[in-house]
């Protein structure tokens, strides 16, 4: 299978490799804060991959919410729980089993993917933000409002859980 290496494809490969390697460090790092920073690498690369795949808005939302907000929240979680930096083991004793399960999952999924979509080519073309807005506010109004209820529930729940009194 010969890859016609166009610019977007090269970019995809670069970001995919970064995402994969950083992903291994997220689950392999011995330092919680380092794991969170590697997670930034994964999320940023995945955001860039969205942009390469033409999903411009989703890509920037990924950067804005994941890298800008969720990772900050996770870092707050680390700081509030006084997580051990080095020393105490961060992994349990199921590592070999976990590795076997993960490798089997990856192998099985990859096999299925290549059997089904091995020859399918996609033509990259950008989706405009206007298109997203069009679709969101005409076809997906109810899910959109449901999201606000979800966020409200999450906010109230977090306040109830986190408050001392």
């Amino acid at each position, binding site marked *: 299978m010969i890859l016609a290496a166009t*610019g*977007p494809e090269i*970019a995809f490969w670069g970001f995919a490799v970064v995402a994969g390697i950083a992903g291994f460090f997220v689950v392999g790092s011995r330092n919680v804060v380092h794991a969170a920073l590697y997670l930034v690498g994964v999320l940023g690369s995945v955001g860039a991959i969205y*942009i*390469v795949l*033409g999903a*411009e*808005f989703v890509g920037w*939302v990924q950067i*804005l*919410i994941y890298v*800008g*907000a*969720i990772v*900050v*929240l996770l870092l*707050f*979680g680390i*700081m*509030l729980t*006084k997580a051990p*930096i080095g020393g105490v083991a961060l992994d349990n004793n199921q590592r070999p089993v976990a590795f076997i399960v993960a490798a089997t999952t990856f192998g099985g999924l990859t096999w299925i993917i290549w059997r089904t979509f091995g020859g399918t080519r996609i033509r*990259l*073309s*950008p989706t405009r*933000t*206007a298109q*997203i*807005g*069009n679709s*969101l*506010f*005409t076809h997906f*109004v109810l899910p*959109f*409002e449901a*999201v*606000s*209820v979800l*966020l*409200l529930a*999450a*906010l*109230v729940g*977090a*306040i109830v859980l*986190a*408050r*001392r009194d």
Partner: protein
Amino acid sequence: MSYYWQYGTLGALTAVGGAFVVIAFLGNRLMRPRKPRVEKATTYECGMDPVGEGWSNTHIRYYLFAFLFVIFDVESVFLFPWAVQLEKLRPQGTVLVEMIVFIGILAIGLLYAWKKKVLEWVK
């Protein structure tokens, strides 16, 4: 293909900027004198000797503020496509009401946080 050209320009600019920083710091490292001492490696704490560890427990109040930020960050994400399409979608009033309902529901959360005195910074 203007989309990929634009992002290509952005990528090239990022690469050049990153290379600039790397080269500057690498040059600095190569040329500077290197005389490590124990005092130089200690944490700078306004000139005093550092007390305790660098790891201190944060108050849980920070977490609630961070989560409030996340919630309204998510809200702002939905504002972008709405703002782009507000003038083009018909009927316009409906689109406006959709967003007002969305923000209104989230405002209830903010009101709840206010009522529960999450927003107050008591010592």
